[in-house]
């Protein structure tokens, strides 16, 4: 990418910083090691998404979490570009687990009714309706029989609904705003 196209963030103001944020986050499963990030940049260098995206930078996400720039982190749709390939997890010299940090931030965005990609609402609604995240139409079942494949295992929809409820997922999914595509 040419330099002219590079994303230039606006200046950070002191009142945006929240020193407590990193401590809150480090209690969440997956983000425990956020304080250990020393900004070496290995994660960004080895991230396949950063390689082709002008915006997605895992090192920056780690630093922004350390600084407590919560609103900036959660309002940036690029957060949803991580492919969970776990390259950063294996390569980080400090064991920071960026993929876990990104997941914690995404979860927080959904929990606080901010934003998430539309596709997750579709997957979740299919799961609740049929146990599978894609809708398996009747013709698929017939085709299986024709191909000599055994019938698909049946879901227990009551139990799935209960799992959604008890993990607080049903409410979350109702209220969060959705967007379709992320600019790269």
């Amino acid at each position: 990418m040419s330099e002219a196209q590079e994303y230039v963030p606006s200046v950070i103001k002191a009142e945006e910083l929240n020193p407590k944020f990193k401590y809150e986050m480090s209690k969440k499963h997956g983000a425990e090691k956020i304080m250990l990030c020393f900004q070496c940049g290995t994660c960004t260098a080895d991230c396949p998404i950063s390689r082709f995206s002008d915006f997605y930078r895992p090192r920056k996400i780690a630093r922004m979490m350390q600084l407590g720039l919560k609103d900036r982190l959660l309002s940036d749709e690029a957060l949803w570009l991580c492919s969970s390939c776990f390259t950063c997890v294996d390569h980080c010299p400090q064991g920071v687990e960026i993929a876990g940090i990104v997941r914690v931030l995404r979860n927080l965005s959904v929990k606080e009714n901010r934003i998430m990609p539309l596709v997750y609402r579709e997957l979740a609604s299919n799961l609740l309706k049929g146990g599978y995240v894609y809708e398996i139409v009747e013709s698929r079942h017939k085709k299986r029989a024709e191909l000599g494949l055994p019938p698909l295992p049946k879901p227990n929809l009551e139990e799935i609904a209960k799992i959604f409820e008890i993990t607080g997922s049903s409410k979350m999914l109702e209220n969060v705003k959705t967007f379709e595509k992320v600019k790269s």
Partner: protein
Amino acid sequence: MPKYLIFLGCVIPYRLSSYEISARKVLEKLDVELVEMPTFNCCGYPMDAINHELMLTLAARNLCVAEKENLNILALCNGCFCSLNETNKMLKEDKKLREEVNGHLKAIGMEFKGTIEVKHLAHVLAEDVGFDKIKDAVKKPLTNLSVAQHSGCHILRPAKYVGHGDDPENPTLLKNLIRLTGAQCLDYMDESACCGNPIIGVNEEVPFQMAKEKLDHIRAVKAQALITACPFCHMMFDMNQPRIERAFNEKFGIPVLHYPQLLGLAMGFSPDELGLGELRVKPTELLNQIQGGKS
């Protein structure tokens, strides 16, 4: 005789029965007994981004079902392997997390005990069946065939959870399984790079560039086919190949086979029996070469 609970996941029944058909064929021939899940829900993987606890509990429910059957799980999909295996290991190691998840499972009358294991098809073939037995089952070695492999992220990384000893920087498990068929497995640049498919629901440009680069590298070493072990990677390289070709104005024409399809051919199954007709990029030349007796 190894016996496993087969975990199909969602995308295989939805779109890729060719993977299931070929896997069942070769496993039966190799004396691996498959038992169907008595009750099923999505492995949880797609829900991790929106709620980690939801993912853990959905995965754990499947693990509890397997515990009740007293059987280990065999997953065909890397994504299912990832969520089921990681959840299984995390819950076994982390008492606090286990208590949390068991708290949720109580509502549906289940409890995670940590008595089973989760394996991917590649692990079952390499560890339970074993290289010798596979070699013996190869009746029509695919000599003269040169292919490349794409293991897919989640049977390689994160190394601390995957287990089974493969090297994510230089993966050899799938390569060695391919070599048992008599085919050559070529090295190429950035072999363990991600296919890009996990984000295709939110952005197509980046995954297309990732997959295109991979196809470039595979073409550069003149591989006749790409061999995968994950339905999502397969979709990225097979189903989307014509679209990638259009987007970059390139012609690749690289057939993408599920590993059990390749193995099945070497074991003497017909292309029809292995669902090869379902592939988007038709492996015509490759089949001609195999059936033409040149190999």
